[in-house]
């Protein structure tokens, strides 16, 4: 029960980072981003994503364009801005740092070099 809660908190913490990462690979629209996040078990329901996307857009990290879709109405394609790329680079760095630090905490300083991340 408690472990689930902690896991959910961890995922929540890196959700924004993951969204930026997905968009750094290619421009994408909400249902597609959702599918990726769902597959990674980052989110369970779709509604979680929309407010975050809009907030990131308002912070200047993302922008969007309308693009025709093969079926149905046009889709909102989100893409990173330069600001978004800079933020992502910072987050990438702190993620690496975090993984390293957690590894040190888990295994102690001396095995730092030898332990592989699973």
């Amino acid at each position: 029960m408690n472990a689930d809660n902690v896991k959910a908190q961890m995922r929540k913490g890196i959700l924004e980072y993951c969204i930026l990462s997905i968009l750094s690979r290619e421009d994408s629209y909400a249902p597609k981003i959702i599918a990726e996040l769902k597959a990674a078990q980052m989110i369970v329901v779709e509604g979680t994503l929309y407010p975050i996307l809009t907030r990131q857009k308002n912070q200047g990290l993302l922008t969007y364009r309308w693009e025709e879709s093969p079926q149905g109405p046009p889709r909102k394609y989100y893409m990173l801005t330069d600001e978004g790329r800079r933020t992502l680079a910072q987050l990438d760095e702190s993620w690496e740092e975090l993984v390293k630090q957690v590894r040190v905490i888990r295994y102690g300083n001396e095995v730092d070099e030898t332990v592989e991340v699973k």
Partner: protein
Amino acid sequence: MKETINVNIGTQSFTLDYDAYQTLRTYLEDVEARLGADDQEVMSDIENRLAEIFREKTPSPMMVVTIRTVRSAIEQMGRPEEFGEPRSTADSKEQKSQPIYTTFEERRFRRPLNDRVVGGVCAGLANYFGVDTLLMRVIALLLFCCAGLSLWVYVILWIVMPSEEMHKLDINKQKR
């Protein structure tokens, strides 16, 4: 035969059963309340997505969107509390406390399925008032035997108090 309503969701026209319409409207109002007034853009994103889901599930524009379609779309989108992540602890507490409190109360005023002796009324009341179920049963028995409380009170409560299962099915409809 069912009454239907025409609505515009994300600039597309849909025909909804009346119960489906009510459920959807309540849902959108709850989501809007959760997001706050200035998030019109998010609301229109959500409406657009709902329109997309409805279109997928009702292939012909002539077909009516039923309550089942609406419920499964809502399930896919998630409960209003699940929209966005909590912004800051203080914020989210303030925003969340009200709706959670009401649904919590609503949920508790029902007859649990798995803890019934006669109709589950005592168990339901015990949950509702937060006391031990056994204690509630003893109190009820004492009232019936010694204090002259009419058994009709029990029967009426049995009728009035929703069963757990029914409530689950109707959760969206009964909110308002």
